[in-house]
């Protein structure tokens, strides 16, 4: 390993926090993609957002917006994590 790197210990904590964050965000991702937009869509269609059935809206609009938010959220949280554990570039 690079001799300038600190001991592997803090890296392990950094990696574990990273994994936890990824797991959180991917659960939201799966819930939106497979839950709201797919499994629950027929049921959600009984309500409307504007003039559009809700399940249809999630499948063709809402899910995409959530994905964008998830990726930006990850970039922002990881910037903080990099600083906290001193592994910034």
């Amino acid at each position: 390993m690079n001799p300038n790197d600190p001991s592997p210990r803090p890296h392990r904590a950094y990696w574990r926090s990273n994994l936890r964050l990824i797991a959180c965000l991917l659960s939201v991702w799966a819930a939106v993609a497979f839950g709201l937009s797919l499994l629950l869509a027929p049921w959600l269609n009984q309500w409307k957002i504007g003039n559009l059935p809700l399940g249809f809206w999630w499948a063709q609009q809402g899910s995409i917006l959530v994905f964008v938010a998830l990726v930006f959220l990850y970039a922002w949280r990881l910037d903080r994590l990099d600083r906290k554990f001193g592994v910034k570039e």
Partner: protein
Amino acid sequence: MTPTGLLEGMLAESAGDGEWTRALTFLFVTITFMVYLYIGWRSRVRETQGFYVAGHGVPAVANGAATAADWMSAASFLSMAGLISFMGFDGAIYLIGWTGGYVLLALLLAPYLRKFGKYTVPDFVGERYASETARIVAAISAIFVSLTYVAGQMRGVGIVFSRFLEIEIWQGVVVGMLIVAFFAVLGGMKGITWTQVVQYGVLIVAFLIPTIAISSQLTGFSVPQVGMTAGDVAEKLDALQHDLGFPAYTRPFATKSLLDVACILFALMVGTAGLPHVIVRFYTTPSVRAARWSAGWALLFIALLYTTAPALAMFARYNLLRTLHGARIVKVESGEPHAGDGKAAALYHLAQETAEGTWEPIEWAVGWQRTGLIRFHDENGNGRIEMDRGEQGFREATIDRDIIVLSTPEVARLSPWVIALVAAGGLAAALSTAAGLLLVISSSIAHDLYIHFIDRDAPESRRLFVGRAMILVAIVVAGYFGIRPPGFVAQVVAFAFGLAAASFFPVILLGVFDRRTNRQGAIAGMIVGLAFTSVYILGTRADKIFGADEPWMTAWCFGISPEGIGAVGCLLNFVVTWTVSRVTPPPPESVMKLVDSIRVPRGSHEPLPHFDESDIVADG
């Protein structure tokens, strides 16, 4: 004067309008092409790092725009809205699949591959698994995936040119090839990146303007996403669909089963994250941090088109049904044999009733019938076109899904310059993706295979020369596919996704997240995943791919369609890789250190100091 006589007079007059549109299209296409050439000239490179990864010098936002253009292909621009238009709710699988994949890419792959930092996906696979065999398998699948994909792009270029400039498809493809050749050969990744940034601008404007115009026309809201949600088109379309005997547009699973939809969704997402030409874009950012942010920008830029497309799909279907249903047949000519299949189709001149009760000719229908992408057939001979549900699609019309986007400005009677803009946008989408794919093909052959195995000590100048030569070869091969296309755009693209899902995604993911995964596991996993997926797709699509009389096998795997089988291939790859890795010896210490080092951002600016190339073995 009878209505028919009046109409014939108007048809003769309208020829001048077509000339005007063609002149404008020619102008727009020429201007955009000149800009691409200029950028290509400005960003020519002299060293391989510039040629393969743009010298790691692309800012996050610019890389986001380039990734969006790289990613949004002729299929996204030309075919996707059409597909959704025909599938209704179920079209969401493409929207969710092709955007949801970016979440996987941003969280699981992009930052780590950027930290690794060296040129290609096969480079990563080869070094992570310390294996030449793994590198070769990865290089060959990268070439194969990219070749299948690039064929669709060239076909897209051909469609646009033949429809809008009325030249032969092969001539259009040759023009496209020359343009790509110029900036890709001179500037490599750097030239491609900066042209893609501009191409993103062209394609998004070209997509948004007609959609905004139609949204304002139909709903009174200029933002299509708002018009779709708050306007009443969805209700009216559902009612119209019902009258014509189709399932409601907003009803889920009208065309496919739930399991099939879930599998296609998963395969598209994982395939997106595993496409080599998308992954390599993240090697070009200056830092790991920039790679993460640039994934966000990329998805934002993509979402702009992907939330607009379903609005366009809905509006276009409504417009199309409303215009054509009940249209009166003014005149039927016997048309010339169509270049595609040689069949001489009858040319129908149609007219629609206006609000004032007069009859207006539907000019675009004539133009599109000449391309063979739309056909009419007055089955019951009542002098009207009826758009009721027939055995396959509509009873009295056959409409190719690819024309929805291209014909939209004409159907909605937008001015000629919008039509010209759409043509330029379609070309930008196809060319930007083609360029990215061609670079992957070239780098796989030149860098991963030729330089690595045959000419290891090549000086910088020869490395660059081989890269450039390979791009040229790839362009010629892609052009051949464009002139003799192996299938229609979206279908071929689905094939590339299945293969990317079944090969790259699991191997890269486990390579980063599981230290224990070793060479034996990765090779076995890739081979099993690729073999299963390609046999299934080729077998169930034999009729379309090889021209067999019927498919060699039915969709025997739980009825999953070929587009979704990549999901099963991917899971198989995971299981095989994991299991084989655990019954064989762990990877060497140097590989473990490589994994530890790519997990943290620090040190991305230096070459990886701890990895010893001599650890790579030739696998017996």
